């Protein structure tokens, strides 16, 4: 049962990342692309967690935590740059 659920969830996450790539490619404005990248890193955290369950090891949780922190900081930095024209004033 867990194997089937793992495969279904993996397939749904991969389709979600492909939809994000579609929005990242055609996105008409710059905030659309930033939003697509933001969603993509959140979905990649889910993929890493599913990979950890598949391997039955907790090695890659630090990678997920790092992606969460750096993704948030980069999103805020790019938004700040678009808002003010500068990151640190």
């Amino acid at each position: 049962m867990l194997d089937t659920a793992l495969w279904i969830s993996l397939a749904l996450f991969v389709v979600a990342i492909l939809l994000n790539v579609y929005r990242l490619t055609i996105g008409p404005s710059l905030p659309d692309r930033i939003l697509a990248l933001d969603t993509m890193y959140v979905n990649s955290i889910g993929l890493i967690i599913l990979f950890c369950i598949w391997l039955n090891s907790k090695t890659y949780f630090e990678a997920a935590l790092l992606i969460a922190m750096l993704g948030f900081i980069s999103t805020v930095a790019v938004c700040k740059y678009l808002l003010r024209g500068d990151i640190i004033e």
Partner: protein
Amino acid sequence: MIGFYTVMEGIIAFFLVAGGVFAFIGSLGLARLQDFYMRLHGPSKTSTLGVGCTLIGSMIYFSLTNHTISLQELLITIFLFVTAPVSAHMLAKCALHQKLPHYERTKGRPEELDEEQEDPDAADRPSTTPAP
């Protein structure tokens, strides 16, 4: 008689599939909706819930297999739930600053978007280009 581990396996499978479905719905909203202000709703609410469900499922799984309570997933979950509204707020401020086009039947629009209705040339004019 259904054993304890079978019930817990069912609960973990339910959380994993629910997480995948929520993440897929959020990304579908990002790809399908009309303007940016609608598209912001999908990822900022649904994707966070999807990854949160997946992390809860993996927390139960690793707590059962290692016979210890694992709290690293809880850290990631709390971090995502704290930071997702902040980044959504920053993106909305960014879109209002750039005066992005919106769906014309939007109700209760803020005054930044009403200015754009009165002055249609303001959206076309790039603000960073210096005057010749």
